[in-house]
C-alpha cells in the first residue's frame, strides 16, 4: 500500500459540518444513558433513605416518587434513542465511508447503552413496586 499524499485532507470524507454536528452520532451521546441511569439511581437511593428510613417510613410516598422518577428517566432515554435510531438508519442507507461508519457505530452504541440503562432502571424500580412496607 502506498500512502496517499492527500490523505490528511480526506479524514472527514464527504461529511459536512452539519453532519458532524448531527444529534445522535457524537461520543458525548454515549454518556447520556449512563448519566440518566446514575441520576435515577441516586434519586431512588436518596428517596428510600429519606422517606423509608431517615425522616419517615412512608412506602406510598416513596413508591410514587420512584415511579415518577422512573417514567421521567425512561422518557429521557427514549428522547436520546430516537435521533440515534434515525441517524443510524439514514447513514445505513447511504454509501458507507469511514466517517459514516464511525457515526453509525457511535449511534449503535448510544442505542444499546440506552437499552441496558432502561433495563437497569426498570429493575431498580421493581423493589419500590413490590415492597409492601419500608422495613
Amino acid at each position, binding site marked *: 500500500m502506498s500512502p496517499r499524499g492527500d490523505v490528511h485532507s480526506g*479524514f472527514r470524507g464527504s461529511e459536512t459540518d452539519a453532519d458532524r454536528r448531527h444529534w445522535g452520532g457524537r461520543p458525548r451521546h*454515549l454518556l447520556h444513558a449512563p448519566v440518566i441511569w446514575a441520576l435515577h439511581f441516586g434519586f431512588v437511593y436518596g428517596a428510600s433513605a429519606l422517606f423509608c428510613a*431517615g425522616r419517615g417510613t412512608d412506602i406510598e410516598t416513596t413508591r410514587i416518587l420512584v415511579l415518577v422518577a422512573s417514567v421521567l428517566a425512561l422518557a429521557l432515554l427514549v428522547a436520546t434513542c430516537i435521533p440515534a435510531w434515525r441517524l443510524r438508519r439514514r447513514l445505513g442507507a447511504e454509501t458507507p465511508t469511514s466517517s459514516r461508519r464511525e457515526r453509525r457505530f457511535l449511534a449503535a452504541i448510544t442505542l444499546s447503552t440506552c437499552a441496558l440503562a432502561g433495563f*437497569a432502571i426498570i429493575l431498580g424500580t421493581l423493589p419500590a413496586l413490590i415492597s409492601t412496607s419500608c422495613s
Partner: protein
Amino acid sequence: MSRMQAPGRDAGREENQREAARQLQAAWAVPRGSRYWTEVNNTQIGIWYAVVAFFFFLFAGVLALLMRAQLAVPGNELLDAGTYNQLMTMHGSAMMFLFAVPILEAFAIILLPDMLGARDLPFPRLSAFGFWSFLFGGVFVAGSVLFDAGPQAGWFMYPPLTSDTSQSGIGVDIWLLGLTFIEVASIAAAIELITGVLKSRAPGMRLDLMPPYAWYLLVVGAMILLAFPPLIIGDLMLEMHRAFDWPFFDAARGGDPLLWQHLFWVFGHPEVYIIFLPAVAILTMVVPTFARTPLVGYPWVVLAAISTGFLSFGLWVHHMFATGLPSLSLGLVSAASEAVAIPAAIQVFALIGTVLVGRTIRSVPMLFAAGALAIFVLGGLTGVMVAVAPFNWQAHDTYFIVAHLHYVLFGGMVFPLFAGLYYYYPKITSRIMSERAGRVAFWLMFAGFNIAFLPMHLTGMAGMPRRVFTYSTDLGLDGLNLVSTIGAFVLAAGIGLVVLDALRCLRRGRDAGANPWRAGTLEWMAAMPGASKLMRCVPVIEGRYPLWEQPGLERAVARGDYYLADAPQGLRETLVTTVVDAEPLQCLRVPGPTSLTIFAAAAFAATFIFATFHWVWAAGAAAVATLCVLLVWLWTGTGRIPEEPMRDVGMGLSLPVYVSGPASIGWWAMLITMIADQSAFLALVFSEFFYWTVATPAAPAPASGPLLAGLLAGALAWVLVIASRHLTGRDRPSPARIALLAGALLAVGCAVLLVVSLRTAGLDPSSSASAAMAATFVLWCSAHLAIGIVMLLFCLVASLRGRLDAKHDGDIRIVLLYWHFLAFTLLVSGLVLAARGAS
C-alpha cells in the same frame, strides 16, 4: 490520488532516510549510567512500574502463604492474632493498591503508545511522577509490616475501630496517608491514559477503529476519576478524626461510622471493575490473535465496557447488606448487582465466540485465557448469589465470600494478566518464554487455585468466619482447611515457575522476531533498527487490525513514508489528533528525561510520611518543597513558545507546534483532573447530606455576613480571570496583568472571609461531626483558592516574561478552566453552608 515516488531509486533520498532514522534514535535514546533513572518515556516507565508492582504481588502472595500456613491446622500457634491481622490487612491492601491497579496501568502505558501509533503518550513526566510516587509510597506502606507497625484493621479500615487511636496504632495512619498518596499516582495515570486514548491516536484511527483495549482503558480511566476521589475524601476525614479529633465517625458527637463504609465502598466496588476491565482488555487482544480472526461483536464489547463502567457505581451498598439499611435500598442495589451480570456475560460470550469463529491455535497465553474464563464464570455465578440480600446475610463474613472474591479476582485479573505476560513478553524482551514451562506453570496455578479456593465455598457455608487467625477443631473443617493450604502452596509453585522462567528467558529465551504470534494490531509492527524500539513513522490507519488489513503497511512504515519520520531538531515529538476522527492537529513536543519528577515525588512522599507521624512542621516544609519543584517543572517543561510555529510532519502536511484551548492536551488534562476533583467534592456534599438524613442535631451555621462577602469576593475574582483571558486574547497585556493580580488578591480575601465566617460563629470542628463538615467545606474551598492563586501568579510571571500573549494563551485558558470549576465549588459550598443557617 498522488502516489509518492517509489523508494530506493534515489541514493540521496536513502541517505536522507538514514539520517532521519539516526535523528529519531538520538532523540529517543534512553540516558545511560546513573541518568538512566531520569528517563520518562512511557514504555520505559511502564516496565519499571510493572516490575515493582509484580514484586509487590509476590510480597503480598508470601503474606497469603503465611496466613494459609497458620490456618493449616486448628489452634495453630505459628502466628499470633496481631501478626495475622497485619498480614491479612496488608495482603488485601497490597494486592489491590500496590499490585492490581498499578500493574494494569503499567501494562497500559507500555502498550498504548504502540497500539495507538503514538510515539509516546502526551504526559510522560506525569507517568514518571506517578511511578516514583508509587514506589516511595508502596515501600513505605508495605515495609510497615516488617517493623511490626502494619495496619491491623482489614483492608476496609472500618471505624470506630480505626478512628479510635487507643485501639489502633500508627498502622492505620500509614495505611490512610500512604495509600492516599498512591491513589494520587493512580489518578495521574488515569489522566495520562484518557488523554492518550482521546488525543494521540494515529491519523485515521477513528473511535470505531480503536483496539478494544483502548476502549477499555478509556472506561477504566473514567472510573478511576470517579471512584478514587471519594476514598481520598474518606481517608482525609478519617485521618482528621484521628489526628485532630474532628468527630466524623463518632456517634456520640453526631458522626456516623457508616459514612466511612459508603465512602469506602463507593470506591471499593468500582475498584473491582477497575482491575477487571483492563485485564479482560488484555484477553480481547490475545484471543483474536490466536483465533486468527477479528474480535467477534466489537460494538457489543464496547457496549459492555461502557455499561460495566457505569453500572459498577450502583453496587457499593451490596457490601453493606448487613448494616440495617431499608429494604428498598437493598432491593435497588440487589437489582443493579444482578444487572451488571449482563455486560459481564457479553464479554465472556464475545471471547468464546471469537474462538468458535476462528481457527484457533493452541498456545500458553490461550491456556491462561481459557483458565481465566472458567474461573471468572464460577466467581460471577457466586457473585449473582451474594447479590441476593437474604443469601448475602447467610454468607456474610464467611469463607464463602473469600472464595467468591478470589474466583472473581483470579479469573478476572490474575489469569488474564499471566496470559498478557506470556503474550507481550516477546514484545518487551524480544524473546519467547518456554512453552513447556508455561504449560506446567498453568496447570500448577489452575489446579492449585481450585484446590485452595473451591473448598472455601464449603467451609464458608459450614460457618467458618473470615478474618480470624485460628479456628476450633469443633467446627469439623480441619480437613478442608488443610486442603486449601496445600492448594495455596501448589498455586505458589506455579507462580514461582513463571517467575523463574521469565528471568531465565531474558537471556536464554528463543529469539522472537518482530511479530511472533502474527498478530494484527499496531503494537506488533516491527520497530526500526536501533537501541530504542521506535516505530519508523506514524502511519495512517484504516482498520481495526492494520497488520492484517493493510497489506504493505509495514514496508511503507519501515521506509518512513508516513508522518514524523524524522527529528530535525533532535526533540521527542508525537502527533496530537482530534478526539473523534483522529485528524492530525498538532505536532506535540514531548518532554525528555528529567530528575524533576523524582524530586517532586520524593518531596510529595515526604509530606505524607511526615504527616503520618504527625510532624506538622516537617510535613508543611515538605509540602512547600513539593510546590517549588512542581513550579520549576511547569516553568521549564510546559507552555514554551517554539522558535518555529509550524513543523513539516511529512506527507505534505505542516502542523502547529503550539496550540491552546480545547485543541491542546494541557486543557484536556485540566478538564480530566477537575472531573476527579469534582468527584471528591461530590463525596463531600454526599457526606453533608448523609449527616442530614441520619438527622443529627441542628447543624451549626457559619456567620452569614463574612460568608456572603467571601463568596462575592470569590465571584469577582472569577470574573477577573475571565476578563484577563479575553484581554490576553486581544493582546492587551497591561490590563490583563492587573486583572490577574486583582483576582489573586480577591481570592486571598475570599479564603480569609470564609475562615472568619467560621470563627465569628464560634464553630469548633471537634464539637460535632456537623461542625467538622462545615470546617471541611471551608478548608476545601481555601485549599482550592490557594491553588488558584498560585496559578494566577504563575500566569502573571509568564505574562511579564513574554510567554503569554494572544497567540500563546494556553496557560491562561487552562487556568480559566480551573477557575470555572473553582467558582462552581464555591457556589455549591456557599449554598450548603447558607442552607444550614436557613434550616
